[in-house]
């Protein structure tokens, strides 16, 4: 064992001997230790909690990951896997420091099998790169998070990512067939595979969404989905948020399952319009981006039905994307909406909650009211068809008081989601951000069972400590206290 002394903040820096060992495994260019390099890895998209890892490792093979994990165990140092760091709940925050295993250099597409409808990829592959690789084959990889131009498939597996088109096609877990996993003790295990219906427990389904706490996925077998034969993309423009949310309810209740059904409110329209100039009306309270797909013979009827339902709910206008360029621009506006928010505010916190779809009008009203009460500007762009809201709270991270109000408004909105029968996260995960909410959603028994499941994978708690479950990890890692978030945000 290496002798290490706790730093003033209670964390234990890694020993120079350990860094030497990593250099021998990965070569010098696979090991980052300089402070100016580590700062890149100090947080994900959840910027209010930051903690740089002691060392960042960039393996290129499963064997290297195995050696890293074994070495970490030998030195009793915690480790956390990371993809592109686009997560929004601190899922890859290196709580307690230690080793970060960044999988971004493992980005090969190893196999594409169209007849058996699967592809085998490495975890660092960027989501969109797989879809681009498949262009022209008639198949695609269905989960399409808004960050798909940057986020990795491995990260999608860890967080069970969604995206606009998951309304019809399902989230990541519905599209993962198999995984190669380096277990927290260094064993390599194959879970599932391209043949479906294997006997025994669905460990693939269990692993997806485990936020890095079950091990490090080093290879993913994903299901490929047929491209739709045809689609129609509509833009419904509404005078009030209430009318728009009622229209959503009516569409779902009519038994229509659009491929995507997204809402943007006035605040976000303003930012998106300034950034991309689509021609959104700046005086509209909300727009719905609705896509139906399916057979060419059926999509027009479905589109007409949706237009009628929108008009019945008082839509000012429903536009159709007449060309592929118009459709692409609409989706760019939606998916890159977050990038446009920089025009509104220096910092923002994207919340993620879910309510039963018929409760959307209620939660939207509550969000507006909470924003006013806490004097925090909140804009909305979200997966309306799933009832998955994304209020974006705008603030300046140099202002501690604003941050405190952001936390209070967030907590109230998420609490309201629970009260309405929903969840505090639909796709971003618990990470470190929402640990406190776990005890509000789940009983002690629920959490004890979840903790026992983690014991089967990660008994020492060395892999991604301090995540997902509010109990302290086996290593005694405490999650970063949010009592002085302003200080952490500013640090």
């Amino acid at each position, binding site marked *: 064992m290496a002798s290490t002394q706790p730093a003033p903040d209670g964390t234990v820096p890694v020993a120079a001997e350990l860094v030497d060992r990593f250099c021998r495994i990965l070569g010098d260019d696979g090991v980052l230790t300089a402070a100016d390099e580590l700062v890149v890895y100090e947080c994900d998209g959840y910027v209010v909690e930051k903690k740089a890892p002691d060392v960042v490792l960039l393996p290129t093979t499963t064997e290297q990951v195995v050696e890293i994990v074994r070495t970490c165990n030998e030195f009793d140092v915690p480790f956390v896997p990371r993809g592109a760091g686009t997560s929004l709940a601190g899922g890859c925050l290196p709580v307690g420091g230690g080793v970060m295993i960044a999988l971004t250099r493992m980005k090969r597409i190893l196999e594409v*099998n169209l*007849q058996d409808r699967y592809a085998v990829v490495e975890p660092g592959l960027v989501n969109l790169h797989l879809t681009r690789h498949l262009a022209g084959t008639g198949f695609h990889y269905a989960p399409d998070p808004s960050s798909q131009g940057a986020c990795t498939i491995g990260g999608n597996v860890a*967080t*069970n990512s*969604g995206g606009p088109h*998951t309304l019809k096609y*399902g*989230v990541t*877990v*519905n599209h993962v067939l198999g995984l190669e996993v380096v*277990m927290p003790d260094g*064993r390599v*295990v*194959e*879970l*599932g595979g391209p*043949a*479906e*219906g*294997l006997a*025994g*427990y*669905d*460990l693939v*389904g*269990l692993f*997806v*969404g*485990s936020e890095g706490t079950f091990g490090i996925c080093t290879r993913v077998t994903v299901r490929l989905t*047929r491209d739709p034969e045809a689609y129609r993309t509509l833009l419904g423009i509404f005078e009030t948020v209430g009318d728009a949310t009622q229209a959503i309810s009516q569409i*779902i*209740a009519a*038994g*229509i399952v659009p491929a995507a059904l997204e809402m943007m409110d006035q605040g976000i329209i303003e930012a998106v319009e300034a950034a991309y100039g689509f021609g959104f009306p700046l005086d509209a309270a909300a727009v719905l981006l609705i896509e139906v797909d*399916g*057979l060419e*013979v*059926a999509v027009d*009827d479905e589109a007409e039905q949706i237009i009628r339902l929108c008009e019945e709910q008082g839509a000012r206008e429903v536009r159709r994307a007449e060309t592929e360029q118009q459709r692409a621009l609409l989706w760019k506006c939606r998916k890159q909406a977050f990038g446009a928010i920089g025009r509104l505010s220096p910092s923002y916190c994207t919340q993620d909650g*879910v309510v*039963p*779809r*018929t409760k959307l009008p209620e939660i939207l009203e509550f969000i507006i009211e909470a924003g006013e009460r806490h004097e925090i500007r909140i804009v909305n762009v979200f997966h309306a068809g799933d*009832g998955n809201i994304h209020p974006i709270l705008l603030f300046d991270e140099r202002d501690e008081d604003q941050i405190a109000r952001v936390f209070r408004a967030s907590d109230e909105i998420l609490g309201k989601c629970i009260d309405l*029968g929903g*969840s505090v*996260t639909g796709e*971003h995960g*618990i990470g470190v951000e929402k640990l406190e*909410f*776990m005890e509000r959603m*789940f009983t002690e*028994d629920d959490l*004890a*069972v*979840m903790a026992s*499941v983690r014991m*089967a*994978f990660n008994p020492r708690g060395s892999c991604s400590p301090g995540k*997902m479950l509010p109990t302290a990890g086996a290593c005694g890692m405490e999650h970063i206290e949010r009592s002085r978030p302003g200080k952490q945000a500013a640090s």
Partner: protein
Amino acid sequence: MNEGRKSMVDGPGELIPATIPELGRLLAANAKGERRPVLPVGGRTALGFGFPADPSSLEVSTSRLDRVVDYPARDMTVTVEAGCRVASIQASLNSEGQRLPVDVPLAHRATIGGAIASDAGGPRRFGLGTLRDYVIGIRCVTVDGRPFKAGGRVVKNVAGYDLCKLMVGSGGGLAVVTEVTLKLKPLPSSSAIGWACFDRGETVSDLLVDMATSRARPVAIELLGPKAGRQLAVESRQELPVGPLLLGVAVEGNAVEVEWQVEVIDRELRAGGAPDVTWVRDADTAKLWSVLTDYQLGGEAPVTIRACTRPSRIVEFVVAAIDAGVAVQAHAGNGVVHCHLPDETIDVEAAAAVIGSLRELAVAGGGQVIVERCEFGWHNKLLMWGAPRVDWPLMNSVKRQFDPDGLLSPGRGIDGAMQQAAADGMVVE
């Protein structure tokens, strides 16, 4: 809750609690007292699966836990207790123009809890997925009586570990499922299944390659051997083509979608070498769907096995099975196959030989062969789950976390498969 109702005890071996809390109390009492092995029981349609239950088991039936807890149709979700019969759930969903699009064998008897435990499915898994895609919330009771839940009542939710997935197909070996929330789909207004016969496996293989990129979007692609084909025609009272290989391709949707797809598939089947195509439409498909779904149970066959392999290897597998005299139904688009060994399989050695050769083929395709049912006494002589896979020890660790003392359905699932493989001298890491 029906606290006023008393639990019924059917003989010394079966408990039928009236409420979920009562189920918890009974399990807790057993865990603290007699510590008998516990066998969760639903509609008794899958109890014969796999390794036999310990004869001293305390059966805990969910049949009185049959309330619909909440059906907010406009949210397209339903929450039901585990003892609800699948067909009765479907009937209430259908009245709202919705359905759970999963084919469950003997749906009038099968309970939703049992369907989840056994990961029941059928032909439409090709286009519509399996139970794992529809269970969004679950409540269970551990073998020592502690209630727990995971997921919730909303269609998208990543709070906590996804224990819903873990429970689907857990075979009653981890916990007793007491309540589930399901995501629903609209009920299609029209359906059609086209049937065609082929003489040669190669013709079907080529056709399936083309069908993978058909402009139509089938919900099921079924490939049946002659025995299964005959039984299907007799039981469904439909005039179906007769031949060595019977291929069925099904579509669903509104009338326009179905009509257009029927034309496309009809053309594709004929271009692929089908001498004729017989279409069964709308109301007439109902009986076909139920026969296609129930066929896997196998009636009186001495041995029933389930195989999985890659879809591209399916025809090779089906042809080998037919050559061995096996009655075979394949969900060809998924690579899942149900096989019933012939009545002439009178001894376990003959059964083992057939299973062995089919198993080799399935394993070569990345899959597996599981013996689902066999004659009494053959369980110990047939390798029920085959050679151990690399994830079995991890599955066994999960089992031990839930059931450290092996009281719940002991030896019926992964624990039984591990013991058998070890006894057979196979290394299990």
